[in-house]
């Protein structure tokens, strides 16, 4: 059964004067999926989100949510979408309770319906202990939960999260993702921007935007199979040893080693297919690193994006 398309962009473009912030971006997001939108700062991620939310008018191209055009049918789209901005925009003077009540009323909830939704969201986000605390006094993780609760008050079909995990602790980050998976399983479509590769790996689909252009878009596993990521006659290996930085300097000079990057206590190499492990071990031994473990690995998403970015930088097209 083909999946229903929830978000679609066709040659979506935004220009600010002479600067093109988003350049002919096209992609589609299926209902119920978690779409991870990646790219460096200033690459145009937030601009795409703002156009999809109806905050910015596209200069060119078109985009739609649930079949409604984002430029023409904003009023139809508004009840369908939730938006959690980078800043977790809350009213600092208001308490948790008041913030939530305000957003509920803003979306037309009142009386028993408001109360019921309020209770559900408090239960979901575990905000009970802080109900009467001013939003200004909440820590990052709790602010994020409150912002999330506020953006969910009207049960949106699509939730946009602009760097939801920037600056919050790992526990809160993990819990947020658990929630996102739960929403996704209930049929909500999630559109998440992030800088974290581990978060990107969790998404059902990812798009990578660089210099205002969408470089690639697809399922993480498919992207890892791209020819550009796996050049013919190469393999990826993990070398675990002591003194990784010394080792890196050494192996980089070897013929047949195409790229080498440190990953914690090991290094990831892209080497020629016929490269012998013993050749690497011998070179390491020459540099006073007597022991090393070598094993084959699959490319990570980071490898994918690095390969694609390098390729674009070389090729002006």
């Amino acid at each position, binding site marked *: 059964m083909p999946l229903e398309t929830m978000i679609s962009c066709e040659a979506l473009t935004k220009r600010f004067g002479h600067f093109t912030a988003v350049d002919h971006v096209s992609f589609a997001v299926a209902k119920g999926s978690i779409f991870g939108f990646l790219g460096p700062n200033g690459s145009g991620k937030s601009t795409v989100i703002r156009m999809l*939310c109806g*905050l910015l008018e596209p200069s060119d191209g078109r985009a739609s949510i649930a079949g409604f055009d984002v430029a023409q049918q904003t009023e139809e789209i508004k009840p369908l979408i939730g938006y959690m901005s980078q800043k977790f925009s809350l009213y600092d*003077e208001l308490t948790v309770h008041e913030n939530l009540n305000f957003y509920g*009323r803003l979306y037309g909830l009142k009386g028993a319906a408001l109360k019921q939704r309020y209770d559900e969201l408090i239960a979901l986000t575990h905000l009970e202990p802080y109900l009467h605390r001013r939003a200004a006094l909440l820590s990052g993780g709790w602010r994020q939960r409150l912002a999330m609760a506020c953006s969910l008050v009207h049960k949106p079909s699509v939730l946009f999260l602009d760097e939801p995990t920037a600056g919050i602790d790992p526990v809160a980050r993990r819990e947020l993702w658990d929630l996102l998976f739960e929403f996704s399983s209930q049929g909500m479509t999630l559109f998440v921007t992030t800088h974290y590769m581990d978060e990107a790996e969790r998404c059902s689909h990812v798009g990578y935007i660089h210099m205002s252009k969408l470089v690639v878009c697809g399922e993480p596993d498919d992207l890892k199979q791209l020819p550009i990521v796996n050049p013919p006659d190469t393999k990826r290996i993990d070398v675990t040893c002591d003194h990784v930085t010394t080792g890196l300097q050494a192996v980089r000079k070897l013929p047949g080693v195409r790229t080498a990057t440190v990953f914690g206590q090991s290094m990831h190499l892209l080497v020629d297919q016929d490269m012998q492990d013993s050749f690497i071990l011998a070179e390491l031994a020459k540099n006073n690193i007597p022991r090393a473990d070598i094993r084959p690995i699959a490319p990570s998403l980071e490898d994918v994006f690095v390969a694609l970015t390098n390729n674009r930088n070389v090729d002006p097209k």
Partner: protein
Amino acid sequence: MKTPFRGFTAILYKEFLVVLRDPFTLFFMIFPPLVEMIAFGYALDTDVKNMRTIVLDQDRTEESRQLVKQFENTGTFKVVGEAQSITELADLIRRGKAYVGIQIPPEFTRDLRAGRSAKIQVLIDGSNSTIAASALNTSLNVGFLNGLRAMAERFGLRELPVEVRPQILYNPEMRSPNFFLPGVIGIVLQIATTFATAMSLVRERERGTLEQLMVSPLSRWGLMLGKLVPYLVIGMLMSAFLFIVMRWVFHVPIAGDITALMVGTFFYVFALLSLGLLISTRAQNQMQALQMSMMFILPSVFFSGFIFPRETMPGIFYAISTVIPATYYIELERALILRGASLGDFWFHLVMLAGMGMALFGLCVLRFRKTMA
């Protein structure tokens, strides 16, 4: 709920809470107006009374003492010392010991009795024009009156041939608080209310909450009205408070209808709050909002007739004054408070205020684009 005011009650609820929680805004709405009222009520009293005066009496007769007494009786002059020479007299004025010096020459009584013109000299410090003008007028009056009396005596008349009996209506003691305080209320209301709304929307823009509002189904009318109403309530309470201070602290009687006064105030505050909102649709940050509000406040101070009468202004400034809400409000206030006029006589002012308010409000709703660009 597809009403044009979608989201109005939500914004109203939030805005009241935010205003009440923000002591900074409340402080700036209440405190500066009070200070300004006190400043204008007490310090800026332009009634010229008890000016320090030095006398150089070279005549030293009953007549010359009588003349000095007449000067003192006007209330404008207060003799604080005597000089021995004309140089000393001029020196005392230059050193700021006195504003006025009266020199009565030795031949004063002799000339008076002989029917010749008896001359006296009055030296006035012209560095403050208000004071100088008042001293000049009063001393000329004293001289004229003396001259007329002497003439009448000579012709055997018991009364002066012509006597002017001026009667000042509506502010009989010519107290300057009566003139200034209604105007001060008009100006401080403008400062407080324009800033309040100009800042409140810009703050949301800076914090990013405006973006959050714009992805919601909130309507523009709902947002603007929700922003305006809380400050309208505060503005009305504030004006009532200022009128109470004016009436019972500065004893400026309110001659006219208080309901009429409050209706006029309502339209005035509404117009100013809309002006503040209009500024906030333009300003990108609080600094800009502040500067733009100042830009509108200064003309109100100078061209509204608050300090300088509009009628004597050059044409261009008079033209500016006709589009300033404070012009109409201050005229309305003075008419209602001091002259006890009825609203019926000043319906034009009321229509102008209401019209400006609605035009400004409509403009800011139209100008406020839901999109960011």
